[in-house]
């Protein structure tokens, strides 16, 4: 199994790994890294707003969320490859083996739990970006809006993966949580984008 420490890769190598094959990093890792980019943008905007008293605290939060997102990018890669291997085993096996089906289901659920966390981080970053956009130096407001848009995109992608990986109905609380995160992120981004046009 390949390494999922994406921070250790050069950017070009990471991009090649994404486009190489059907293995990780895939959509989940890419959405987590998008959220991480957005978090770092928020940190930059806050850092460039010295007149804002709470800027230092916002930088610390944005960096903490960014680190979590990078960690989740690796975790998603590992979970997805494990689920994929189980899926291939199940396809290669003859007949219906209930134990194998149960194991596969467990691995797919594990693969869905990471995007659920990514969606929540996306909502947090979009919220933080909105707060930052309201208080930052005017010159950097557009960057805050860009961060909110990226975070909302990451949250939406992650929520979509939760739905697909679980194959669930609308009543599943995990999907409801993912969709709530997506909505929070989208609303924050739309509000900020609207005010910076």
């Amino acid at each position: 199994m390949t390494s999922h420490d994406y921070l250790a890769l050069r950017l070009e190598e990471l991009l090649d790994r994404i486009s190489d094959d059907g293995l990780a990093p895939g959509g989940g890792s890419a959405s987590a890294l998008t959220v991480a980019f957005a978090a770092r943008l928020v940190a930059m905007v806050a850092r460039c707003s010295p007149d804002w008293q709470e800027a230092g605290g916002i930088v610390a939060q944005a960096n903490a969320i960014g680190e979590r997102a990078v960690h989740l990018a690796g975790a998603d890669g590992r979970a997805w490859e494990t689920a994929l291997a189980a899926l291939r085993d199940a396809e290669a096996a003859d007949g219906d083996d209930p134990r194998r089906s149960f194991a596969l289901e467990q691995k797919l659920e594990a693969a869905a739990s990471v995007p659920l966390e990514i969606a929540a981080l996306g909502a947090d970053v979009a919220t933080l970006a909105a707060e930052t956009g309201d208080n930052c130096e005017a010159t950097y407001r557009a960057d805050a809006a860009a961060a909110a848009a990226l975070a909302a995109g990451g949250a939406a992608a992650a929520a979509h993966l939760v739905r697909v990986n679980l194959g669930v109905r609308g009543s599943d609380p995990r999907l409801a949580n993912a969709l709530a995160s997506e909505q929070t992120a989208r609303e924050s981004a739309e509000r900020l984008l609207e005010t910076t046009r």
Partner: protein
Amino acid sequence: MSKAAGLTDAELVRLCRAGDPDGWNELVERFSRYVYAIAVRGFRLGDEEAEDVFQDVFTRVYTRLDTLRDDSAVRPWIAQLTRRRCLDVLASRGRETAVEEEVLTHEETADLGEVEEAFAVREALAGLSDTCQDILDRFFARDQSYKTIADELEIPPGTIASRIARCLGRLKDALGPET
């Protein structure tokens, strides 16, 4: 919680000097993780060696507390005793021949700095309001999302980031101008 738990370091030292058993229990409780952290993270000692250092350091603290000139400086004093004892352990196992601080590698020195910093933050954190301690712990230590924090504390989600930022500002003030 014992009556000694809320005392400052200097007050605690005075209580220990007076021979109060609660004071000694609190002193060990307050500094035990610090001593372990220096031994394990700073000097990479194993569990057994760290336990030896721990026993030896607190024996020295017990027998030499009267030699401490400034009661409020008990933490750096314990840190110094611990570092010296750790260097003795390293020298005795032949990994290092000298017993001066200069023998520490760059990495070990950096780890020691992190240990010191972590404990300084922990101490400053303890001086903040319960509300601030709680919200910082939830966000930075338990990795809770703004929504989870808002739901559990029953406060509006849009105010969480600001509250955390204000608490961090207070923590920074408590840590002093060098941070």
